[in-house]
C-alpha cells in the first residue's frame, strides 16, 4: 500500500499546496499563485470569469461577450449584485460565434453586434469581453472597439480576458484595466495633492469603496455608515456603480479596498496616477467594521469625524449585540471551514467566526498570494489546515479529518459539505441576504445558526434504516420522556446508532491525535492579543470572549 505522506491523500504535485498553521516567525511552506494542475478538479474558474465577476455589477453598461454562446450563457445573471436603478447588466449579450466565424473571423459580427446594441439600449459604456477562441483566432478587439467608440461617441472598452491567459486573478486585472479607461481625469479644482497631513481639515472628504460588489445589497448597508461620518462616497466598485459614477472616481481623497485580490491593482494605479492613497478595509463583522470606520476617521484626522465614528459604532453594536449573543450561545465552540475565492474574505471571516465564538479548522482560497497565506497563518490556531486551490476530494477529506461542523464557501463546495452531513453557509455571489454591515452580520449569524442547529444533521447520522436501532431508540426516547433514569443508556445507544459509518476514514491513531491537538499557548496568545482598537464601554467585547 502506498504510504501517506501529507495531511490528506492527494496527488503528489498537490501536496505542497496543503499545510498547517506555522509558528510565528516561520515562513509558510505553502505553494500558491500557480496555474491549476490539470485533472485535479480545481474549484477556480478562468480569466474571463474573473473579469466578468468584477465588471458585471456595473449596472448601466452593456456587457457583450465576444465568443461562442456558452461563455455568456453560463454567466448570465449569476451574481446577486443589486442595482438601485437601471439593470442593463443583468442581460447577457453575446456575439454567439459559430464555426464559420471561427474560420473566417468574428470581427464583423462583433462590430454589427455593437451597432445593434447601441441602437437598442443607448448604453453609456460597452464592455467587450474576449474569450479563449477570440484570442486564438486573433480578432483585433482593440481596433474594433476603437472604431466603435468613435462611431457611437461612447466608450467601447475591450476586456482582454481570454480564458487561457492565466487564472482568475488575471481576469481581475483585465477588468481593472477596462475600469481604468473609464476613470476620467478629475477637473482642476478637485485634483491636486491628496495628502491629509498637508491639509488636515479636508472639507467633506470623498472616498471610493473598491471591491464591494453589492451582493444582495451589501453596499447599501455600508455606504450610509460612511455618509453619517461625513464623507461622500463617490462610487463603490463595482457594486451598484454606473459609468458616470466610475468616471468620477479620481475625485476621491481616499480609496478603501475590500476585495484586495481584485482591486488592489486598481488602487495602486490610482495612487500612482492621481495620488489617491488607499487603505485596506473589510465591512464584515463588528471588529472589521469598527476598524474600517476608525481607520478612515483616523486618516482624515478630523476629531469630529472620529467622534461620529464612535457614535455610529456604539449604536450599531448595541443594536445587534443581543441577537449576536443569542446566536453565539447556540454556535460557540463549533468548528468552521473556510474556502473562499479571495484571501480578503477568508481573513475577515476568521474574525467573524471568532466573534461568534467559533474556531476555524480549515482555511483555503482559490487565488491567495504568499503574503496572504502568511497573514492567514498568523490569524488561525495551531492545527488549522491551510490550502491553496483545493479540489473537491481534498476538501472532503479535510472536512472529515478536521471535524468541521460548518463550511463557508460557494455553491460548488456546498454539496460536498451536505453529502458529508456538514452544515454550510454560502458567502459567494449567489447568496440573497446581505452579510456586510451591522445588519449583515446578524444575517450571517442567523444563517450559521440555522445551518448548524438544524435537526436534519441528527437525522442524517443514520444513513440506512436499521430496525433494531430504531427499537432501541424508541425505547430510550420513552425512557427519557418518562423520567431520566436511563439517560446514560440512551446516550450510549444514540452514539451507537447514529455514528455515520463512512465518516470513519482509515485514520491512523497518530494522525487523529494530531488533528485533535490544540496547544494552549497559541490560544492564549490570541486571547491576549492587544486589541487593535479602543474598546468602548458598551457591553461585552464579542470577539475575545470564550477563549
Amino acid at each position, binding site marked *: 500500500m502506498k504510504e501517506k505522506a501529507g495531511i490528506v491523500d492527494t496527488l503528489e504535485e498537490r501536496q505542497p499546496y496543503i499545510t498547517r498553521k506555522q509558528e510565528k516567525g516561520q515562513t509558510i511552506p505553502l505553494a500558491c499563485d500557480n496555474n491549476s494542475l490539470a485533472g485535479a478538479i480545481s474549484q477556480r474558474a478562468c480569466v474571463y470569469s474573473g473579469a466578468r465577476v468584477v465588471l458585471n455589477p456595473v449596472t448601466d453598461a452593456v456587457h457583450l461577450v465576444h465568443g461562442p454562446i456558452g461563455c455568456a450563457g453560463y454567466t448570465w445573471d449569476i451574481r446577486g449584485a443589486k442595482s438601485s436603478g437601471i439593470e442593463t447588466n443583468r442581460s447577457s449579450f453575446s456575439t454567439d460565434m459559430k464555426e464559420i466565424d471561427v474560420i473566417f473571423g468574428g470581427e464583423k459580427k462583433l462590430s454589427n453586434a455593437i451597432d445593434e446594441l447601441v441602437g437598442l439600449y443607448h448604453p453609456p459604456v460597452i464592455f467587450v469581453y474576449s474569450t479563449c477562441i477570440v484570442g486564438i483566432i486573433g480578432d483585433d478587439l482593440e481596433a474594433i472597439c476603437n472604431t466603435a467608440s468613435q462611431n457611437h461617441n461612447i466608450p467601447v472598452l475591450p476586456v482582454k480576458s481570454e480564458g487561457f491567459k492565466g487564472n482568475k486573478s488575471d481576469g481581475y486585472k483585465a477588468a481593472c484595466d477596462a475600469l481604468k479607461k473609464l476613470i476620467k481625469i478629475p477637473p482642476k479644482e478637485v485634483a491636486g495633492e491628496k495628502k491629509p497631513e498637508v491639509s488636515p481639515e479636508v472639507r467633506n472628504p470623498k472616498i471610493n469603496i473598491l471591491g464591494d460588489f453589492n451582493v444582495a445589497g451589501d453596499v447599501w448597508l455600508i455606504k450610509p455608515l460612511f455618509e453619517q461620518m461625513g464623507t461622500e462616497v463617490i462610487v463603490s466598485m463595482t457594486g451598484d456603480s454606473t459609468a458616470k459614477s466610475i468616471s468620477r472616481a479620481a475625485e476621491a481623497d481616499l480609496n478603501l479596498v475590500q476585495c484586495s485580490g481584485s482591486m488592489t491593482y486598481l488602487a495602486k494605479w490610482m495612487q500612482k496616477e492621481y495620488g489617491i492613497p488607499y487603505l485596506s478595509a473589510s465591512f464584515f463583522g463588528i471588529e472589521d467594521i469598527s476598524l474600517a470606520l476608525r481607520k478612515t476617521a483616523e486618516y482624515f484626522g478630523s476629531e469630529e469625524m472620529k467622534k461620529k465614528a464612535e457614535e455610529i459604532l456604539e449604536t450599531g453594536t448595541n443594536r445587534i449585540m443581543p441577537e449576536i449573543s443569542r446566536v453565539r450561545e447556540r454556535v460557540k465552540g463549533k468548528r468552521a471551514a473556510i474556502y473562499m475565492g479571495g484571501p480578503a474574505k477568508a481573513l475577515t471571516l476568521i474574525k467573524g467566526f471568532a466573534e461568534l465564538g467559533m474556531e476555524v479548522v480549515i482555511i483555503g482560497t482559490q487565488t491567495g498570494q504568499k503574503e496572504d497565506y502568511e497573514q492567514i497563518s498568523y490569524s488561525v490556531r495551531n492545527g488549522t489546515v491551510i490550502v491553496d486551490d483545493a479540489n473537491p476530494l481534498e476538501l472532503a477529506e479535510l472536512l472529515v479529518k478536521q471535524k468541521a461542523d460548518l463550511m463557508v464557501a460557494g455553491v460548488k463546495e456546498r454539496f460536498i459539505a451536505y453529502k458529508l452531513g456538514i452544515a*454550510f453557509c454560502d458567502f459567494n455571489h449567489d447568496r*440573497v441576504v446581505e452579510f456586510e454591515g451591522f445588519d449583515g452580520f446578524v444575517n450571517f449569524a442567523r444563517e450559521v445558526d440555522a445551518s448548524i442547529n438544524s435537526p436534519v444533521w441528527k*437525522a442524517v447520522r443514520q444513513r*440506512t434504516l436499521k430496525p433494531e436501532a430504531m427499537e432501541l431508540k424508541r425505547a430510550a426516547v420513552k425512557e427519557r420522556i418518562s423520567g431520566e433514569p436511563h439517560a446514560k443508556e440512551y446516550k450510549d445507544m444514540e452514539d451507537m446508532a447514529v455514528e455515520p459509518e463512512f465518516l470513519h476514514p482509515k485514520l491512523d491513531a497518530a494522525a487523529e491525535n494530531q488533528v485533535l491537538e490544540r496547544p494552549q499557548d497559541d490560544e492564549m496568545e490570541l486571547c491576549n492579543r492587544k486589541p487593535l482598537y479602543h474598546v468602548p464601554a458598551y457591553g461585552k467585547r464579542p470577539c475575545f470572549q470564550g477563549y
Partner: protein
Amino acid sequence: MGSALAFKGIENTMVLYHGSQGCSTYMRLHLAHHFREPVDIASSSLSEKGAVYGGRENLKKGLRNVINRYNPKVIGVATTCLAETIGDDVPAIIREFKEEEGIGDDPEKDIIIISVSTPSYGESHVSGYIKALEAVVRKFAENQGEERAIKIPNGKLNLIPVESLSPADVREIKEILEATAGNFIFLPDISETFDAPLRDDLPKIAPGGTSISEIADMPNSRASLGLGIVSKNLALEYLEGYYGVPGHSVPIPIGLSNTDNFFTELVNIFGCPIPDKYQAERGRLLDAMVDVHKYLYGVKAAVYGDPDLVFSLTTFMLELGMHPVLVATGSKSRDFGMKIRQIFKEIRPELEPVVLDGIDFDSLNDAVSDCNPDILIGNSNGRYIAKARDIPLVRVGLPIHDRVGAQRILTVGYKGSLELLDRITNTILEATDTFTAPVQAEPAAYASQGTEEECME
C-alpha cells in the same frame, strides 16, 4: 361523509344515506370536488311524511331501488341526523327488508347490508370512517357464523388506516407492502375507486376496492397494522379482541421517523429485510432534507386537518427544523393535544406550540392571528385565512377542491415525504423569492434620444 369514504373502498359497494336528500347530495358534491370522480350515494329521501311517521318505507324502497339499478354486492347504510333523531331502528328495518326480499346471510350469493350510526352531531367524519370500517369488519366476521371458532391462519397482514388516505397514498403503501411483506389486506382500498382510469364504458360502481373475501379473511390474519395513533382504530381493536389478531398502530408514515417506524413494524411482523429500493428512497429523502434545511429552518407553520394527518405532518416539520406554532384539528380529541405535546417533547422540547382540537375555521383564523405563522399547511378550507393574511397555503388532506390532483397527492412513505418536502420548500421559496425582472431604461427615452441624434446629424 367518513362512512362513505370507508364504504367506497370496498369492492362493488353502494352507499345509502338514510335521511333527507340533501345529506347525500352535499356529500357527493364534496367528494366529487375533491376526487374529481363520479360519487354515487343513494338516499332514502325522507320527506315530511317520513319524518313524522318514520322512514321505514322510504329506506326499504331506497334499498330496493339501489339493488335494482346498481346490483351491488354490499350496501352500506349510514344514518343521518334526521334518521337518528326520529328514532328509526335501522338494523330492524334492514332485517325486515331482508326477510321480505328473501335475502339470506350467505356472503357468497347474498347482498350484504351493513348499517352504521353516523349522525353529524355525533362526532366528525373521522369517527364515521372508523365506525364504518369496524361495522364492515364485524359484519363479515360475524357472517361466517359457526366457522368463526376455527381459525385458518392466512399469514396476511391487515392494514387499516384511521383516516382516509389519498388514492396515491394507498397505492404507495400497497407497493411497499408488496415489496416487503407480500400478503396483506388493505381496508379500505380507494386507490382505484376514487382514482379510476377513463374507460370505454361508465361502470355503475367503480371497479376496485378491497374484495369481500379478503375482508371476510381478516380475522385469520397474523397481525393488523393500524395507521394513525391519535384516533382509536376500532376495527383493529375488534379483530384483536374477538379474534386474537395482534394489533399494532404506527403514525401515518409521513416524514422520516414515522416512515422509519412503519418499516420497522413491518420488519418486526414479517421478519423481512428492508428492500434496497426503500433504503435508497430513504437516502434520497435525507439528501433532500439536508439540501433544503436552511430554507425551512425556523419557518413558522400552522398545521390543521384530521388529527392523525396533523400529527404526522407535525412530526415531519419538527424533523426539518420548521417551527409549528399552531397545531389544530377540527375533531374533538382528548388524545390529540397529549400526543402532539409528546412529539414536541421528543424532538424539540424547547418549542411551545398552540395545540387546539375541536375548533372551527373562525377559531383557527383567530389562532392564526395570534401565532402569526409564515405558512399554512392543511386543506383548502384554510384558503380564506391564507389569502387574508397573504401567506402561502400548502394543500394537504381533505377537501382540496380548489386545485386539481387531490387524488394524486402523495405524502406517505419516503417518496411521499420527499414530494411533500419539495412542495413545502418551493411554496416558501415562491413566497420569499427576491427575483425581480431587470429594470431597463424606458424605450421612449431611446426613441427621443434617437431623434435628437438624427437632428444633430
